[in-house]
């Protein structure tokens, strides 16, 4: 169970600012931020508080069970982001 950031994400990072457990990456201090296509939620550390859902100005965040058909693959994409070499779940 986790929340998932999908295609509309514009890297506004309001979600990251409100997340109580730092599970969203990359943050504005991360060197990857400038080239990031979107932000990602680490499904291993997300506690399902859903604070990010309303904080997101573009409504890009869904509960993984409730992903619309066209965004279903984003659950795997959010997970994969954190499985890359050198990826970190912590906000730098």
């Amino acid at each position, binding site marked *: 169970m986790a929340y998932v950031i999908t*295609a*509309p*994400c*514009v*890297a*506004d*990072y*309001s979600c990251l600012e409100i997340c109580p457990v730092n599970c969203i990456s990359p943050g*504005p201090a991360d060197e990857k*931020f*400038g080239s990031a*296509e*979107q*932000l990602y939620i680490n499904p291993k550390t997300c506690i399902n508080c859903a604070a990010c859902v309303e904080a997101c*100005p*573009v*409504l*890009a965040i869904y509960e993984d069970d409730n992903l619309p058909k*066209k965004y279903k693959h984003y659950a795997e*994409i959010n997970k*994969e*982001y954190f499985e*890359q070499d050198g990826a970190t779940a912590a906000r730098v």
Partner: protein
Amino acid sequence: MYALEHLLEERSLDIQIDLYERLPVPWGLVRFGVAPDHPEKKLVADRLFNYFLGHRNVRFFGNVTVGKDVSHSELAEWYDGVIYSVGANSDIHMGVEGEDLKGSWAAREFVAWYNGHPDFSGLDFDLSCKRAVIVGNGNVALDVARILTMPIEDLKKTDTADYAIEALSNSNIEEVVILGRRGHLQGAYNNPELEELAHLEDVKVSVESDGFLPTGNDSDPAFSASSWEARRKVKMLEQLVQNSPADPRKHIVFKFLASPIELQGSDSVEQIVVGHNKLEADDQGNLKAKATDQRSSLETGLVLRAIGYRGNAFPGLPYDEQRGVIENIDGRVTDNSVPLKGTYVTGWIKRGPQGIIGSNKQCADVTVKCLIEDGKNGVLETANTLSADAVTSKLAERNIKTVSEQGWRKIDHFERSAGLAHQQPRRKLYDVNKMLDIATGEATA
């Protein structure tokens, strides 16, 4: 707007902010750049920017041209600090013969046109040819390709300007070729933009690139050496090619390792000569595109260059010609590296035209931190700063028809109501005089 956010967030100070905008309407590229089929991205205005604009410490002065109605030196006097976030209003040229032929445009102009920007609404795009060629393969290129190929029924439900919907309904364009200088592993588009092409009804996608296979590109060593995002893009290209519709209505062709050499035609463009590139590793082992002598030709009547926006010089401010930005260090405007007191920049006119909407939030954070620091260190010139009422008087003396926040809300309401009747989120106004009439309440709805 992000600069507003960071200024308002500074709770140790009670900062009053006046927002000047040349057009009667705010939001910049969120209104005029983001593609009409990305309504969720435009929500950033309704769900976020809206609240900053409406904050009691903020005043909106629309329809005021800085550099004409009021000068930079006046603003520098009237206010403790001035932040410029005017964006990038020009573009990078291809630098090839025939670039100025009729039918050759900047994608920037096409985007502003279909998004109803008042300065571009009168442009005449000839969509009667069968093939359009886009030079460059970033997100703007893909936005344009989608708008040129999406079903008109879908276009009619967006906030695309009505004259553009009309023109696109009568378009003869069947094929859109997107030229990329580098290979299929170096596509500049982002993954979400690429995968959207799969949702375009009855649109076939093809890929022309050395070494690109319809499937199994993972066995290429260059593939494994690429970033996660780049590998996902190639897999998506494979999917797009494999899932092409049986009876396509339109065709999008990704032509990699291709550069424009010349545009040819009598008075308007009739064909584009394309040079083929090859990838070669440089001394550091990085793959670079190198030109070859190979040439081919594509018949086309519409060439849109999408190889980058570029910032213009701003009256009264030092310009960095090489980077196409207002000269600055971390957002503090400098003249030959000497800071100009109280003058700042943020966004594309500071960093260059790159990144997505949220990149500007981090950018503005850096700029505002510099401004606040300067304020606390007594660097800002506050001696002649005017009161809010004094500013209003100054502007009134000059007979400028400013648009207030209330005026913008009237325009906003008018557009949304007009949209309701057509199942569109809004029906955009694009005539400045009409906007002013609505804003000042002189028109009947």
